[in-house]
Protein backbone atom coordinates (compact mmCIF):
# COMPACT_ATOMS: atom_id res chain seq x y z
CA UNK A 1 0.00 0.00 0.00
CA UNK A 2 1.12 3.54 -0.68
CA UNK A 3 0.21 6.57 1.40
CA UNK A 4 0.97 10.12 0.28
CA UNK A 5 -0.19 13.50 1.49
CA UNK A 6 -1.15 16.49 -0.66
CA UNK A 7 -2.24 19.90 0.48
CA UNK A 8 -5.02 21.39 -1.60
CA UNK A 9 -5.93 24.88 -0.40
CA UNK A 10 -6.82 24.34 3.24
CA UNK A 11 -7.36 20.61 2.93
CA UNK A 12 -4.95 17.78 3.65
CA UNK A 13 -5.63 14.97 1.18
CA UNK A 14 -4.22 11.54 2.07
CA UNK A 15 -3.95 9.41 -1.07
CA UNK A 16 -4.11 5.66 -0.34
CA UNK A 17 -3.66 2.88 -2.82
CA UNK A 18 -3.49 -0.90 -2.61
CA UNK A 19 -4.68 -3.19 0.17
CA UNK A 20 -5.29 -1.83 3.67
CA UNK A 21 -4.88 -4.72 6.09
CA UNK A 22 -3.23 -5.56 9.41
CA UNK A 23 0.19 -4.86 7.93
CA UNK A 24 -0.40 -1.75 5.89
CA UNK A 25 -2.98 -0.03 8.09
CA UNK A 26 -0.15 1.08 10.39
CA UNK A 27 1.13 3.36 7.61
CA UNK A 28 -2.28 4.91 7.09
CA UNK A 29 -2.78 5.26 10.84
CA UNK A 30 0.52 7.06 11.31
CA UNK A 31 -0.16 9.50 8.49
CA UNK A 32 -3.78 10.12 9.41
CA UNK A 33 -3.12 10.79 13.09
CA UNK A 34 -0.11 12.98 12.26
CA UNK A 35 -2.17 15.16 9.93
CA UNK A 36 -4.90 15.56 12.52
CA UNK A 37 -2.53 16.33 15.37
CA UNK A 38 -0.67 18.90 13.26
CA UNK A 39 -3.69 21.16 13.38
CA UNK A 40 -4.96 20.74 9.83
CA UNK A 41 -8.56 21.99 9.77
CA UNK A 42 -9.71 19.58 7.05
CA UNK A 43 -8.48 16.06 6.35
CA UNK A 44 -9.70 13.84 3.52
CA UNK A 45 -8.72 10.24 2.79
CA UNK A 46 -8.70 9.47 -0.93
CA UNK A 47 -9.68 5.81 -1.22
CA UNK A 48 -9.92 5.72 -5.00
CA UNK A 49 -6.95 3.39 -5.19
CA UNK A 50 -7.85 1.18 -2.23
CA UNK A 51 -8.58 -2.26 -3.61
CA UNK A 52 -9.20 -3.95 -0.26
CA UNK A 53 -9.82 -2.90 3.31
CA UNK A 54 -10.24 -5.14 6.34
CA UNK A 55 -11.23 -4.57 9.95
CA UNK A 56 -7.77 -3.16 10.75
CA UNK A 57 -8.23 -0.49 8.09
CA UNK A 58 -11.74 0.27 9.26
CA UNK A 59 -10.44 0.56 12.84
CA UNK A 60 -7.86 3.07 11.64
CA UNK A 61 -10.54 5.22 10.02
CA UNK A 62 -12.67 5.06 13.17
CA UNK A 63 -9.66 6.07 15.25
CA UNK A 64 -9.18 9.04 12.94
CA UNK A 65 -12.82 9.94 13.33
CA UNK A 66 -12.51 9.87 17.11
CA UNK A 67 -9.35 11.98 17.05
CA UNK A 68 -11.05 14.49 14.79
CA UNK A 69 -13.41 15.29 17.66
CA UNK A 70 -10.49 16.17 19.91
CA UNK A 71 -8.58 18.16 17.32
CA UNK A 72 -11.72 19.77 15.88
CA UNK A 73 -10.77 18.58 12.42
CA UNK A 74 -13.29 18.13 9.64
CA UNK A 75 -12.71 14.61 8.40
CA UNK A 76 -14.05 12.80 5.35
CA UNK A 77 -13.52 9.99 2.86
CA UNK A 78 -13.96 9.95 -0.89
CA UNK A 79 -13.60 7.64 -3.86
CA UNK A 80 -14.68 4.46 -2.09
CA UNK A 81 -14.92 1.43 -4.35
CA UNK A 82 -17.95 -0.78 -3.98
CA UNK A 83 -16.18 -3.36 -1.82
CA UNK A 84 -14.93 -0.75 0.66
CA UNK A 85 -18.34 0.86 0.78
CA UNK A 86 -19.94 -2.55 1.37
CA UNK A 87 -17.62 -3.24 4.29
CA UNK A 88 -18.49 0.12 5.88
CA UNK A 89 -22.18 -0.56 5.36
CA UNK A 90 -21.91 -4.03 6.84
CA UNK A 91 -20.30 -2.50 9.93
CA UNK A 92 -23.00 0.20 9.88
CA UNK A 93 -20.31 2.85 9.76
CA UNK A 94 -21.33 4.44 6.48
CA UNK A 95 -23.51 6.94 8.33
CA UNK A 96 -20.90 8.10 10.82
CA UNK A 97 -18.32 9.15 8.24
CA UNK A 98 -18.63 12.06 5.84
CA UNK A 99 -18.37 10.17 2.54
CA UNK A 100 -18.08 11.90 -0.84
CA UNK A 101 -18.19 10.39 -4.30
CA UNK A 102 -15.09 12.08 -5.65
CA UNK A 103 -12.36 14.60 -4.87
CA UNK A 104 -14.15 17.53 -6.49
CA UNK A 105 -17.22 17.05 -4.35
CA UNK A 106 -15.13 16.39 -1.24
CA UNK A 107 -13.10 19.58 -1.65
CA UNK A 108 -16.25 21.61 -2.27
CA UNK A 109 -18.16 20.27 0.71
CA UNK A 110 -15.65 19.38 3.42
CA UNK A 111 -15.44 22.91 4.80
CA UNK A 112 -19.20 23.00 5.31
CA UNK A 113 -19.53 19.44 6.55
CA UNK A 114 -20.80 18.85 10.04
CA UNK A 115 -17.54 18.54 11.94
CA UNK A 116 -16.38 15.51 13.88
CA UNK A 117 -18.52 12.97 12.05
CA UNK A 118 -21.55 11.49 13.70
CA UNK A 119 -19.98 10.44 16.96
Amino acid at each position, binding site marked *: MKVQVRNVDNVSVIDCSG*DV*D*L*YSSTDLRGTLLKEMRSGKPNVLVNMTGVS*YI*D*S*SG*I*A*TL*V*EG*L*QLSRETKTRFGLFGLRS*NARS*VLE*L*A*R*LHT*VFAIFDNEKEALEKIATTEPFG*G*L
Partner: protein
Amino acid sequence: MKLVINTDPRLLHIVRSVIRYYAQEAGFPEADVDCLAMAINEAASNVIRHAYDNRPDARLSLEVKSFPDRIEFVLEDEGRKVQPEAIRPRSLDDVRPGGLGTYFIRCFMDESSYDSTFTGGNRLRMVKYFSRRVSSSDEGSSQERG
Protein backbone atom coordinates in the same frame (compact mmCIF):
# COMPACT_ATOMS: atom_id res chain seq x y z
CA MET B 1 -4.88 -28.03 0.40
CA LYS B 2 -2.86 -26.99 3.40
CA LEU B 3 -1.01 -23.71 3.65
CA VAL B 4 1.53 -23.13 6.40
CA ILE B 5 2.96 -19.64 6.73
CA ASN B 6 4.72 -17.43 9.22
CA THR B 7 2.59 -15.06 11.24
CA ASP B 8 4.02 -12.07 9.42
CA PRO B 9 1.16 -9.71 8.52
CA ARG B 10 2.95 -8.91 5.26
CA LEU B 11 1.91 -12.41 4.15
CA LEU B 12 -1.80 -11.92 4.64
CA HIS B 13 -2.23 -10.95 0.99
CA ILE B 14 -0.99 -14.43 0.06
CA VAL B 15 -3.66 -16.00 2.25
CA ARG B 16 -6.31 -13.86 0.57
CA SER B 17 -5.05 -14.81 -2.89
CA VAL B 18 -5.10 -18.53 -2.07
CA ILE B 19 -8.60 -18.35 -0.69
CA ARG B 20 -9.83 -16.40 -3.70
CA TYR B 21 -8.36 -19.03 -6.00
CA TYR B 22 -9.95 -21.95 -4.14
CA ALA B 23 -13.31 -20.25 -3.76
CA GLN B 24 -13.38 -19.43 -7.48
CA GLU B 25 -12.38 -22.98 -8.36
CA ALA B 26 -15.13 -24.28 -6.08
CA GLY B 27 -17.66 -22.22 -8.02
CA PHE B 28 -18.58 -19.45 -5.62
CA PRO B 29 -19.74 -16.20 -7.21
CA GLU B 30 -17.33 -13.29 -7.12
CA ALA B 31 -19.10 -11.52 -4.26
CA ASP B 32 -18.80 -14.60 -2.07
CA VAL B 33 -15.18 -15.08 -3.13
CA ASP B 34 -14.31 -11.66 -1.73
CA CYS B 35 -16.28 -12.32 1.45
CA LEU B 36 -14.55 -15.64 2.05
CA ALA B 37 -11.12 -14.10 1.48
CA MET B 38 -11.94 -11.37 3.97
CA ALA B 39 -13.25 -13.81 6.57
CA ILE B 40 -10.10 -15.91 6.45
CA ASN B 41 -7.98 -12.76 6.48
CA GLU B 42 -9.76 -11.67 9.66
CA ALA B 43 -9.32 -15.08 11.27
CA ALA B 44 -5.60 -15.11 10.45
CA SER B 45 -5.25 -11.53 11.71
CA ASN B 46 -6.87 -12.61 14.99
CA VAL B 47 -4.28 -15.39 15.31
CA ILE B 48 -1.42 -12.96 14.72
CA ARG B 49 -2.75 -10.38 17.17
CA HIS B 50 -4.30 -12.45 19.93
CA ALA B 51 -2.60 -15.86 19.86
CA TYR B 52 0.90 -14.60 19.06
CA ASP B 53 0.84 -10.96 20.22
CA ASN B 54 1.98 -9.82 16.75
CA ARG B 55 5.01 -12.10 16.67
CA PRO B 56 5.93 -12.44 12.97
CA ASP B 57 7.99 -15.64 13.27
CA ALA B 58 5.40 -18.10 14.58
CA ARG B 59 3.38 -20.41 12.34
CA LEU B 60 -0.22 -20.78 11.38
CA SER B 61 -1.74 -23.38 9.13
CA LEU B 62 -4.82 -23.18 6.98
CA GLU B 63 -6.48 -26.26 5.54
CA VAL B 64 -9.12 -25.93 2.84
CA LYS B 65 -11.45 -28.79 1.94
CA SER B 66 -14.05 -28.76 -0.80
CA PHE B 67 -17.24 -30.81 -0.54
CA PRO B 68 -20.20 -31.05 -2.91
CA ASP B 69 -22.28 -28.73 -0.75
CA ARG B 70 -19.69 -26.61 1.05
CA ILE B 71 -16.14 -25.50 1.53
CA GLU B 72 -14.44 -25.88 4.91
CA PHE B 73 -11.53 -23.95 6.34
CA VAL B 74 -9.55 -25.05 9.40
CA LEU B 75 -7.13 -22.54 10.84
CA GLU B 76 -4.67 -23.82 13.43
CA ASP B 77 -2.00 -22.17 15.52
CA GLU B 78 0.23 -23.12 18.41
CA GLY B 79 -0.17 -19.83 20.22
CA ARG B 80 -1.89 -18.79 23.40
CA LYS B 81 -5.44 -20.02 23.78
CA VAL B 82 -7.67 -17.22 22.60
CA GLN B 83 -10.28 -16.21 25.14
CA PRO B 84 -13.65 -15.71 23.48
CA GLU B 85 -14.15 -12.32 25.14
CA ALA B 86 -10.93 -11.07 23.52
CA ILE B 87 -12.40 -11.46 20.05
CA ARG B 88 -16.08 -11.05 20.78
CA PRO B 89 -17.71 -8.79 18.21
CA ARG B 90 -18.71 -5.42 19.59
CA SER B 91 -22.14 -3.96 19.28
CA LEU B 92 -22.42 -2.08 16.00
CA ASP B 93 -23.93 0.82 17.92
CA ASP B 94 -20.69 1.13 19.87
CA VAL B 95 -18.57 3.06 17.37
CA ARG B 96 -14.97 2.52 18.31
CA PRO B 97 -11.86 1.00 16.72
CA GLY B 98 -11.66 -2.78 16.80
CA GLY B 99 -14.10 -5.59 17.44
CA LEU B 100 -15.14 -6.06 13.83
CA GLY B 101 -12.98 -8.99 12.72
CA THR B 102 -15.05 -11.70 14.36
CA TYR B 103 -18.22 -9.91 13.28
CA PHE B 104 -17.12 -10.12 9.65
CA ILE B 105 -16.26 -13.82 10.04
CA ARG B 106 -19.75 -14.52 11.36
CA CYS B 107 -21.34 -12.47 8.60
CA PHE B 108 -19.48 -14.21 5.81
CA MET B 109 -19.37 -17.79 7.07
CA ASP B 110 -22.32 -20.08 7.71
CA GLU B 111 -20.57 -21.76 10.60
CA SER B 112 -17.57 -20.86 12.72
CA SER B 113 -16.47 -22.53 15.92
CA TYR B 114 -13.37 -23.10 17.99
CA ASP B 115 -12.45 -26.70 18.79
CA SER B 116 -12.34 -26.71 22.57
CA THR B 117 -10.67 -30.13 22.59
CA PHE B 118 -7.68 -28.88 20.61
CA THR B 119 -4.79 -28.63 23.05
CA GLY B 120 -1.99 -27.39 20.81
CA GLY B 121 -3.22 -23.82 20.55
CA ASN B 122 -6.32 -22.80 18.64
CA ARG B 123 -8.29 -24.56 15.94
CA LEU B 124 -11.01 -22.57 14.23
CA ARG B 125 -13.32 -24.32 11.78
CA MET B 126 -15.29 -22.23 9.33
CA VAL B 127 -17.81 -23.47 6.79
CA LYS B 128 -19.49 -21.86 3.81
CA TYR B 129 -22.32 -23.68 2.02
CA PHE B 130 -23.01 -23.17 -1.63
CA SER B 131 -26.70 -22.68 -1.08
CA ARG B 132 -26.48 -19.79 1.38
CA ARG B 133 -25.43 -16.32 0.42
CA VAL B 134 -24.47 -13.35 2.56
CA SER B 135 -27.45 -11.09 2.94
CA SER B 136 -28.44 -8.12 5.04
CA SER B 137 -30.65 -10.40 7.14
CA ASP B 138 -27.49 -12.17 8.32
CA GLU B 139 -26.06 -8.97 9.73
CA GLY B 140 -25.58 -9.10 13.45
CA SER B 141 -27.60 -12.25 13.82
CA SER B 142 -25.04 -14.90 12.93
CA GLN B 143 -24.24 -17.21 15.79
CA GLU B 144 -21.59 -19.82 16.17
CA ARG B 145 -22.94 -23.20 15.30
CA GLY B 146 -21.55 -26.65 15.15
